[in-house]
């Protein structure tokens, strides 16, 4: 799914390659410009919503001491920590510092936000990247296999199991896989990034990555398989494909040149749209597998109203989703030349 993929030959008449490249470049620029006001609006909305949230930022800061700290001391703490200010003042102060690269301190982790993100971010990217890649590969394989004969045994088996997996929440998948594969048969470690006390070497991390990445991939899989199967079938039944078959073009060529380009387009869009879902799944999987990632930190930051961390993670997530959907659209435009580039 890289942008360097050449446009498939033999497709209907389309603008020349140079013009398409320029169109895609313009789309990227337009989206980048659009991202700036969007980030401002998202962060403003975050601070405004958090101000109306029933949670008290001091409850997160004080923990069990919340009920014993006197009202006067609580007021002093709110003044020192700046949690008592109006939400737009807090936003202005946060945005001003963020412009200069100072993302502030995370109260929940008692560390600079940049340290929290640098220590945990790579592990989340590794986990979700591997899971997404596995899910896409598996979905492509299963989808193609199932779509070869609509209504056949494979098709029905894939559809039924995808629906079943879709109906099981990720935490149940996690617990079940740990119970059977890690505790029962001791094939994999139960949880953690490494064995206790070990350094995060390639061998250690890859061994510990298998189960959480597999569970996360499995939780993403059903949507991808079902949508790919659907679009493959729709493409296979289109007039163009029927015509191609009627002209006697070999089945392999029909699949490669007529069905796949049309069907993979919507599939890349679905992959792009599932990115937020990936993050939600990662939060659950990180918690169950004690994986020291950022998705879990996002939940902590939201629960404790740790503004500095919450704002940084929300903005980062927004950027990630924007980049993901842009990448998907670029891929879609490259795969299926009929697709417009934002008009």
């Amino acid at each position, binding site marked *: 799914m890289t942008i360097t993929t050449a446009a498939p030959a033999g497709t209907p008449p389309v603008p020349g390659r140079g013009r398409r490249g320029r169109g895609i470049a313009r789309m990227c620029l337009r989206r980048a410009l659009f991202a700036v006001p969007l980030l401002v609006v998202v962060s403003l909305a975050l601070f405004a919503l958090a101000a109306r949230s*029933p*949670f*008290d930022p001091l*409850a997160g*800061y*004080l*923990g*069990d*001491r*919340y*009920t*014993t*700290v*006197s*009202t006067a*001391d*609580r007021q*002093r*703490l709110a003044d*020192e*920590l700046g949690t008592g200010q109006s939400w737009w003042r807090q936003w202005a102060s946060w945005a001003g510092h963020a412009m200069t690269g100072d993302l502030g*301190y995370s*109260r*929940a*982790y*008692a*560390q600079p936000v940049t340290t929290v993100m640098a*220590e*945990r971010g790579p592990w989340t990217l590794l986990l979700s990247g591997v899971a997404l890649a596995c899910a896409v590969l598996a979905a492509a394989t299963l989808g193609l296999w199932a779509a070869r004969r609509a209504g056949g045994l494979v098709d029905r088996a894939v559809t039924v199991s995808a629906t079943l997996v879709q109906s099981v929440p990720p935490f*149940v998948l996690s*617990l*079940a896989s*740990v*119970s*059977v594969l*890690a*505790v*029962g*048969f*001791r*094939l994999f*470690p*139960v*949880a*953690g*990034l*490494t*064995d*206790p*006390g*070990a350094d*995060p070497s390639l061998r250690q991390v890859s061994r510990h990555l298998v189960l959480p990445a597999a569970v996360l991939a499995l939780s993403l899989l059903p949507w991808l398989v079902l949508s790919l199967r659907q679009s493959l079938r729709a493409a296979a039944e289109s007039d163009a494909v029927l015509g191609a078959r009627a002209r006697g073009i070999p089945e392999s060529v029909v699949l490669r040149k007529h069905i796949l380009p049309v069907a993979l387009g919507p599939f890349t869009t679905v992959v792009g749209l599932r990115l937020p879902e990936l993050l939600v799944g990662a939060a659950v999987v990180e*918690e*169950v*597998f*004690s*994986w*020291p990632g950022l998705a*879990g930190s996002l939940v*902590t930051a939201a629960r404790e109203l740790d503004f500095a961390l919450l704002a940084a993670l929300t903005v980062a997530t927004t950027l990630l989703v924007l980049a993901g959907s842009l990448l998907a659209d670029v891929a879609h435009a490259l795969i299926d030349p009929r697709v417009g580039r934002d008009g």
Partner: protein
Amino acid sequence: MRRLCAVLLTVSLAAGAAACTAEPGARPEGIVLADGDELGGYNPVAGHGEAGDSKIYDGLLRLAGGEGLPAFEPALAARLPEVSVDGLRWTVPLREGVTFTDGTALDAADVVATYRAVLDPASASPLATAYEMIAAVEATGPHEVRFTLRHPYAALPAKLLLGIAPSERLTGGLASESALNTEPVGTGPYRLASLRPDQAVLVANEHYWDGAPQVPRLTLVHVPDDNARAQRLLAGEVDGANLPPRLAAGFADRDGFEVSANASADWRGVSLPAGHPVTGDPAIRAALNRAVDRRAMVEHVLAGHGRPASTPLPAVYGPGYDIGAGFEHDPAAAERLLDAAGWRRGPSGVREKAGVAAEFTVMYFPEDTLRRDLAQAFATDADRIGVRVHVRAVDRAGVPGRLPVDAALLGGGDLPFDPDPQVYKTLHSRYADPAVGSAYDNASGYVDPAVDEALDAARRTLDPAERAALYRRVQEIYLEHPGYVMLVFLDHTYVGADTGYTGALPVLEPHSHGVNWGPWWNLREWTRE
């Protein structure tokens, strides 16, 4: 969801028994514990080790374990403190020749700096209220400090458990932004060797003033999920963890594991606000205390790991606790009390008096399932004697404003090593005013001049026998006219695997209970078998 987890765990217990083939990977030396709490935050000013549970820092005093109320023994203090006749000045001589793990020597300036940082509003220390009785702390010599108090406070030794950090590292500013959170420097039995988001490695302090500990290394892994901690124990990845009672019970019959429970003064009870026509009524208060089946709550809600509570003081206070049987479960007597007071059953079964129906609301924090379960058990018991209780989840921010009119399922016991913090703010009439102290202090608006007098007298005298008599008096009066329905004290449960080390002692635990407590609270004293 909880049941599902239990089923899955049972399956894995069975599977584990069937297929114990693969051997566990190479294990680090020493002991590996799984902690549900976040790692880091090792700054005493930010609240780390307030109750003397730090492995990295020492306080002026430390706890001596064993059954009953722990005694205090000198740690960084050379001897127990000397107190002036008026009880306002406490002088503590310091142990000489003690060094921090950065090589600097401990002196009075470090103690002064630590306590001043806690009291300094600019550090926004969460401990400020807990140390409000201290007016000043100053060095009276290179190895002597003096605390000057705002009022006589016999329970001060419990405030001398706080870990001492080097003055050079207490640079002012917010406690949550101090470098000590991730690079702690203390005088304690262990020092932090490495810290990752998922793992902290502590190694024995070879130069520890009380002798280097025999357990050479303590590896703490952060495992937020209860089930995951249980499973990592089963798989042999960790040697111990804190577990909720139901999960801990699954290890009771397994070889190589030991389930332990430490008593705590961590109470749960229902406040009965004086400002509400039903909960403020003395007959209702007395009747509810006899209507609740505390033993059933311990059995069913706490899976047996707890004790019934009639007052905020648990039996562990020994001579300071002598209240006979407390409140017995006697619904018939409760009904007689209500009948005699004029609360008559109405057509719907709910009692009424002068047009007021016997109903009120009990609030609990939404995410706290234990409080929810106890509130529901309380409502069921109250319903049997014709008092209708509405159980309602209210977020923390919404609770304080409603405490004067709505009942709430509250808890306490965060620093239980003296009876004073356990009862003073709960029962003293000064705290009945919501504007004084925290809104949660004396949330019932309990006022009894004789109780006030006894509580104040117990702060003034240092004589243990006299203090015990005063606290007994408080409980006698309270049992006559209760102001809350105290329900239970919790026991904290832990599971440990056999490690070849011994030395665990029971200890009374405060509200908090990570793996800093449990059998491992005195790890420095453990020895190789």
